């Protein structure tokens, strides 16, 4: 358990992706079976202990600790799980701390009635950081900034295999994954995926670069709109229905409405969107209402119904069609989709175009606000896993930009720990003769290393107040640094004072030349909001 606890503590504090990968690979390389397998299950959200409830922790600790001392401590620490893990009376020495497998076994066997005793017994046997990890594991949500995808990438690097192989196998595997690790370590055969309706790795597109235009001949490519939803794969095999995210996470549970309509045999590739394909396509923020939920209420299903806009097929009626060229797959898909429920499925239409100029014109003036660009797909290309260069391109609409004023800067992490590298910026609001800045977003990339040095110097020389790692920077009508901020879209937000939230904001230019009072006003941003 100690190694797993240490891994979690390191992961949460390691900002860089490569650093996290290295820590996870090191864990898989040095921790024996079956512990590492349960560690893997913990990282990918594959463990669930329904008998353990967060509320029992408080009761348990109160039976052991003076309530006044507990309150002083909780006030200071600010997190219940952490306070409990630290204040829990240590039994001191004697028995060896239980392994992760032992912890998982005890938690899994707990019934609702003996769960408090099981949890109490575990906390007695563990160190403070072991207790913290056990509580997080037992109550769900490790929150260490590691996605299932990143963990699979670590496994791929560890076993020197392609990540698609892992994604393809994943749903047939179960903790503690011993045959799987044996295969990764070249000690055993590749596990056979016996599960029905497995995930198949998806085909991804490259962003089109200026140099690509000289090699793209318009007659070789078909075009489709790029819709702003999430990529999904809908699979039904012999009645087993699964909806997967683009990385192979099973998200079926959150979309019973779509699952119910998946009365076909095959694997379809498309965009998950909110609305009714015949009437209305909802925005990404509508879709967000439905994302990352384990269960979904009836109101949610009514107000935010989902549908799938299909653009490809991997299998149809038990036939694997990935080797067929795009145009042939597309013909089969068109006929197939016409037989499906029109409320839940439609076909991503092709865009007619003769020249790239004509397509560019359409890209810049899309016929629908939920379109974020166009896709170019080579007519003769088979369906290939991963991101092959050439057959598929995405050509996104140009980003929105706004001129904002730097308001706060926060110190970065790792390489940037001595730099103020995370910037909160605002735009003007209120009466024009006496405007105030309201924060509208935060960005921490988009600038060069040299620009970072200039920004850091500016922050240090214009600090007016400090709050821990954050500095408030002088920003008023006559003095302030204007940042040109690029972003992909805007949505209404009740969490931000300004009422708007940006998607994917980054600093596109430093406007040393522009006076602060000439930065944009909030009204400019509000005009960019999609119609509600």
């Amino acid at each position, binding site marked *: 358990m100690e190694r797993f606890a240490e891994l979690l503590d*390191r992961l949460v504090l*390691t900002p860089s992706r490569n650093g996290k990968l*290295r820590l996870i690979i090191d864990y898989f390389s040095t921790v024996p079976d079956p512990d590492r397998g349960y560690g893997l299950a913990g990282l990918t959200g594959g463990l669930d202990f329904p008998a353990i409830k967060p509320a029992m922790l408080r009761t348990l600790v109160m039976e052991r600790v*003076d309530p006044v*001392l507990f309150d002083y401590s909780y006030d*200071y620490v600010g*997190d219940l799980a952490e306070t409990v893990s630290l204040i829990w009376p240590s039994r001191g020495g004697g028995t060896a701390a239980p392994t992760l497998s032992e912890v998982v076994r005890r938690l899994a066997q707990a019934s609702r009635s003996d769960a408090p005793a099981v949890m109490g017994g575990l906390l007695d046997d563990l160190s*403070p950081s072991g207790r913290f990890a056990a509580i997080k594991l037992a109550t769900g949500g490790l929150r260490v900034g590691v996605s299932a995808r990143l963990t699979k990438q670590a496994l791929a690097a560890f076993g020197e295999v392609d990540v698609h192989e892992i994604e393809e196998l994943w749903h047939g595997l179960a903790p503690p994954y011993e045959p799987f690790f044996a295969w990764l370590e070249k000690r055993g055969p590749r596990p056979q995926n016996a599960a029905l309706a497995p995930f198949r790795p998806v085909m991804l597109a490259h962003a089109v670069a200026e140099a690509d235009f000289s090699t793209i001949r318009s007659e070789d490519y078909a075009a489709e709109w790029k819709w702003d939803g999430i990529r999904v794969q809908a699979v039904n095999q012999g009645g087993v229905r699964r909806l997967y995210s683009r990385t192979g996470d099973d998200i079926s549970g959150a979309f019973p409405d779509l699952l119910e309509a998946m009365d076909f045999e095959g694997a379809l590739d498309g965009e998950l969107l909110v609305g009714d394909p015949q009437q209305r396509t909802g925005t990404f923020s509508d879709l967000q209402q439905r994302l990352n939920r384990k269960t979904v209420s009836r109101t949610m299903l009514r107000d935010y119904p989902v549908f799938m806009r299909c653009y490809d097929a991997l299998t149809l009626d038990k036939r694997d069609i990935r080797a067929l060229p795009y145009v042939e797959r597309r013909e089969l898909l068109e006929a197939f989709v016409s037989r499906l429920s029109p409320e839940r499925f439609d076909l991503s239409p092709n865009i007619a175009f003769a020249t790239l100029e004509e397509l560019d014109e359409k890209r810049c003036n899309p016929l629908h606000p939920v379109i974020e660009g166009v896709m170019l797909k080579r007519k003769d290309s088979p369906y290939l896993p991963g991101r092959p260069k050439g057959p598929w391109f995405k050509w996104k609409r140009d980003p929105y930009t706004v001129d904002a004023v730097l308001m706060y800067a926060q110190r970065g992490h790792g390489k940037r*720990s001595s730099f103020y590298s995370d910037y909160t910026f605002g735009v003007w609001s209120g009466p024009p003769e006496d405007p105030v800045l309201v924060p509208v977003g935060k960005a921490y990339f988009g600038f060069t290393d040299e620009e970072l040095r200039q920004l850091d110097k500016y922050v240090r020389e214009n600090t007016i107040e400090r709050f821990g790692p954050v500095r408030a920077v002088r920003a008023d009508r006559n003095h302030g640094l204007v940042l040109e901020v690029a972003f992909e879209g805007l949505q209404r937000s009740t969490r931000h004072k300004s009422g708007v939230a940006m998607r994917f904001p980054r600093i596109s230019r430093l406007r040393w030349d522009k006076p602060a009072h000439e930065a944009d006003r909030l009204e400019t941003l509000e005009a960019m909001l999609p119609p509600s």
Partner: protein
Amino acid sequence: MNARQLLRSRPEGLYCPSGDFFIDPVRPVERALITHGHSDHARAGHGAVMATRETLDIMGLRYGTGFAGRMQEARLGETVTVNGVRVTFHPAGHVLGSAQISVEANGLRIVASGDYKRSRDPTCAAFEPITCDVFITEATFGLPVFTHPDPAHEISQLLTSLKQFPERTHIVGAYSLGKAQRVIALLREAGYGETIYIHGALARLCAYYEETGVPLGPLQPATVEGKADAPPAGAIVVAPPSAMDDRWSRRFADPLSCFASGWMRIRQRVRQRGVELPLIISDHADWDELTASIRDTGASEVWVTHGREEALVRWCELNGISARPLHLAGYEDEAE
């Protein structure tokens, strides 16, 4: 004589009226007894200073030899009479030269702990519990959530990280008197024989520790005036905490910031400081050491000072020991 006649708090610090001296005064006074060399306890400009040899030397290094009018060395365990008050210095285990001060008159003994810890430290003499009537304890980590792990375990985490990230310079933030030398000594005990690079602010104190017989192994300045070459990638650099976030640290290869402090027990404090590798190594007693020490002294009354007084006072009440907070101004948290 009651205890408050023997020692009481005054704006300058803890004062003994019959002996006419202060313990760790925060302003210049005529006669000062100093527990240890940290700058919030040991200030320059007193008329007379009594302290251990090491503390006097450390004050001399920090403030210059004329830091006080007169200096008197206190030998550990030897009782000296100051205006009729019996004064004895005993080891406190905090940093090199640190002492508790026992003050005794008319059959009443008060021990002022200064800062102290109980866990093993290869760089200074270990704390000795002194039987007394009143124990004045520090309370820097006076909450039951503060439990310091074995420092050897923390050092092993640092060495593991060095293996995992051999291309990154590990900068360890450590207070320049005591913590820095302890971290270095612990690294040596763990078998780390490479050159350790130190910030300029540590140089004189590290040299002094070596002179007094605390071996620190090969040390090199981390930065040399006018020279651009930084320590090799994968080196350990020890620096005062303030230097870590400073532009000073930019010259190192992809620095990985480590911080050796008891505060690193609390995740929020770790995140606030932007630390990637927290090392829970403290020169102050943790909760269990504080409560054990109160018991060990057999004191019937406890005065709790600088830190989180209320929790320790509560613990004393629960354990039938009379206790009160003693408000003394001017002392800082460890390494903050």
